[in-house]
């Protein structure tokens, strides 16, 4: 909870930076703030405080702390990457404030105990992102991205609100635990509109994680937004939305899982197929990563689908979020540096192994991790998903996941091939600023470290 408060405070502080002229100090302050939030978060874990705040609106239990830890870690990396990106623009302060507010929303989504907090979290997270997506003001594509994201996102929020209203109508409460009890006690006499509400909420949240068939906005928005904002959307937003789905559906609607599981299974299957085959066709790396994030969404949903109350699936989803976030932040960080010249196609990576061997190696490992090749983190993430799913009736989904994983390897390796195999047009060595290098290297080390010692993560997040 203290972490959430610190981040909110930072957001307000960031807005003041312009007025009180401490713009230069802003980044260190933000980084220190995030570290402090992370540390306090961790302390809450240690002391096992399970207090709920604001009349049980929000409560940082173990699940919430684990997810917010991942989000804060990613945010820390993100701010270092963003350091020189906003340097030149006059609107550094606005950007930082917006991202910090989005972060507040993300943290709320991990810890909500009440439908209103869920809705607030989604809105607090989304509205800054609509602005950020369109933040390259003179770029047509960026404007298009912001506009699309806004319209589609508002629709999803509408669905969410409608769903919440219907469920409130059926249960008479916003509180998730009370709702759960009500469902358990009146399982046989729930009205039809209650189920409609559940499906509407599911649709709204799946929209946020861009699972097929609610994914159509994702490629355009990912491509049009500034690369770093895309990185934000594909890591923090995804993780937060997942935490929300996980909490709401495994805790809130866990006892009526037969209503939504078969629909979810079909959605996962569609996500895997559409995303992987579309990604294989892309030449723009950002679009490719957008589709790849849809496919990863499918994988994470699989964990929710698998036996939702076992510890292993909890481990699995946290590990997956962590592995995916780190791999993505590394990949986007490199893409951001490589595409400085304006070329975002795979051909931008041509000859990177000669121009900057270290970064090429980091990119290779990030791609390996996203593709799920041992001994990277992504492999264990996939492994956990397979293990949780193999004991369920959804074995056909497992087979599908394998087939699409092989397709996935195909397009991730396209980049690896471009780096090592194709010749670049100019042999100018690629210089990367030290701060960015730092993030890329640290995240690469993390990819390997938690890939080789996966128990490290599951030991920390022991429930």
């Amino acid at each position, binding site marked *: 909870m203290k972490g959430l408060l610190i981040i909110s405070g930072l957001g307000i502080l960031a807005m003041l930076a312009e007025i009180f002229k401490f713009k230069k100090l802003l980044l260190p302050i933000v980084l220190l703030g995030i570290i402090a939030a992370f540390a306090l978060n961790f302390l809450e874990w240690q002391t096992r405080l399970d207090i709920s705040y604001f009349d049980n609106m929000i409560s940082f239990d173990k699940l919430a702390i684990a997810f917010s830890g991942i989000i804060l870690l990613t945010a820390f990396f993100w701010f270092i990457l963003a350091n020189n990106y906003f340097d030149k623009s006059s609107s550094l302060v606005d950007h930082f404030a917006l991202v910090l507010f989005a972060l507040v929303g993300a943290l709320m989504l991990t810890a909500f105990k009440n439908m209103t907090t869920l809705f607030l979290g989604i809105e607090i997270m989304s509205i800054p992102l609509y602005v950020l997506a369109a933040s390259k003001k003179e770029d047509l594509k960026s404007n298009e991205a912001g506009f699309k994201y806004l319209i589609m996102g508002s629709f999803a929020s509408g669905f969410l609100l409608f769903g919440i209203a219907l469920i409130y109508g059926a249960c008479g409460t916003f509180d998730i635990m009370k709702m759960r009890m009500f469902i358990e006690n009146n399982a046989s006499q729930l009205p039809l509109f209650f189920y409609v509400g559940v499906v509407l909420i599911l649709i709204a949240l799946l929209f946020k994680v861009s699972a097929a068939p609610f994914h159509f906005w994702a490629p355009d928005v990912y491509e049009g937004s500034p690369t770093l904002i895309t990185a934000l959307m594909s890591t923090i937003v995804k993780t937060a939305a997942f935490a929300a789905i996980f909490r709401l559906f495994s805790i809130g609607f866990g006892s009526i899982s037969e209503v939504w599981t078969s629909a979810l299974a079909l959605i996962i299957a569609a996500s895997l197929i559409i995303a992987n085959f579309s990604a294989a066709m892309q030449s723009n790396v950002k679009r490719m990563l957008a589709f790849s994030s849809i496919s990863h969404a499918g994988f994470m949903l699989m964990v929710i689908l698998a036996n939702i109350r076992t510890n292993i699936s909890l481990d699995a989803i946290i590990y997956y979020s962590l592995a995916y976030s780190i791999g993505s932040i590394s990949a986007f960080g490199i893409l951001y540096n490589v595409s400085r010249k304006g070329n975002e196609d795979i051909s931008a990576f041509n000859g990177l192994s000669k121009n900057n061997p270290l970064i090429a190696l980091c990119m290779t490992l990030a791609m390996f991790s996203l593709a799920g090749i041992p001994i990277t983190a992504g492999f264990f993430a996939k492994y956990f998903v*397979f*293990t949780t799913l193999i004991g369920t009736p959804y074995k056909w989904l497992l087979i599908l996941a394998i087939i699409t994983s092989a397709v996935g390897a195909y397009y991730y*390796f396209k980049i690896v091939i471009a780096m090592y*195999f194709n010749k670049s047009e100019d042999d100018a060595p690629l210089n990367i600023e030290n701060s960015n290098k730092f993030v890329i290297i640290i995240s690469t080390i993390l990819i390997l470290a938690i890939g080789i010692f996966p*128990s490290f993560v599951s030991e920390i997040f022991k429930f």
Partner: protein
Amino acid sequence: MLTVLLILFPFISALIVFFTKGRLARNLALTFSVFEFIIALVAFVLFTHNPNLSILCFNHTWVQSLGISFSVSINGLSLLMILLTTFLVPLIILSSFNNLQELSSKFYGLILLMQMALVGVFAANDGFLFYVFWELALIPIYFICMLWGGENRAKITFKFFIYTLFGSLFMLVGLIYLYNHSGINGLKSWAIQDLYQAGRALNLDQQTAVFWLIFIAFAIKMPIFPFHTWQPNTYVNAPTQGTMLLAGIMLKMGTFGVIKWLLPIVPLALDKWGSAAIALSVIGIVYASCIAIAQKDFKRLIAYSSIAHVGLISAGILSANQQGVQGAIMQMLAHGVNVVGLFFIADILLRHTGTNEINKLGGIRNINPNFAVLFLIILLGSVALPLTNGFVGEFLLINGVYQFSPIAAAFAGLTVILGAVYMLRSYQQIMLGENKDSSFGVLARSEKLILVIICIVVIGLGVYPKPLNDIAEQASKDILINIK
């Protein structure tokens, strides 16, 4: 500890080689790989004195909560495979010394990394560790084929990679399924003995599923008909050293896998489905032999002959009797050596004459009779003439398949006849007859050295196979004890 050293040493040497340049890299790589072979020989000597030495085993918990441990050991089967690997890698590195363009240090580093993964695959005693090494072996060879392959490499290597990855993932599911059924009191474990037990406790339907899931991975790696379509193009397009690694050692990962990781796990399914798998193998033998006869390109011919040979090996293993498995182990050793020799000969032909097309070659014996003799010896080993290394294994294999089914043995036996047809005919056209191209010249020192070493092994193991054969016999007994 010795086993860990066998795995770690190539890894460390690969790191060192990566950071050197030019000639130093290749010389270092050669020295390191020779050292590795010496370590393997030490292991061999220790093993023959006492197979249960604790120095040959190593066990350390890796991920406790998941029951994964870093558990490696050397038993008879893995010892032979490691000997084969460590024997071939120096030869493969040496064979690159006469390449027209100098290869970079990355190339040698990747070969050594590959060696690490291969030794790991053969030594692993933990299902998870086995899978990790299995996948790791794929990455260096992917880069070797991708960076130094012939034209069209991108497409062909992709096919190879996707094919094998696909198979591996199926295997992973199969292994996870076993793992989920392993252990007592909810303590699951990846240890090989626990997986054996878990597998045998399953009913027929479950075993069938596991059998096919795992078998597909091995069948693709070997490759067995109808999963072989990646193989000829990959072999032809890869750089010679890559082809040698693929055919000489990587192929054995598949057959090794069937022996150690499939036979003892699913005896019921093997009873029911073994004949189907044998049928596939035998179809592969006849099919690949017929295609080999029609080949005009020598390298491609060897690629197809390799499918035929491995078909026989897999039929022998799947017949699951003493002769079959023992013969398969012996034939794996022989085939590894011979096929590396043959691919090296194809490489020499290509470098000295500029072509691998059988029709364009001819009369090389007139120019270089020494080469002709060495070629002939390796070729005879490959067609399994008595007193060459190929004979012991092939004899036992056909014997083993015959015990399973005389009809299958009749078809499998065709490999001997058809093999002689395409091998001897290509020899006749390439080496004998009139000179079509007089540019062949003399062999370089390192080329001669490699061919002589291989010929010594071909004849030596043909005349006196006993030490290896004893180990193979014991190893196959140890495996089959689990089935009966």
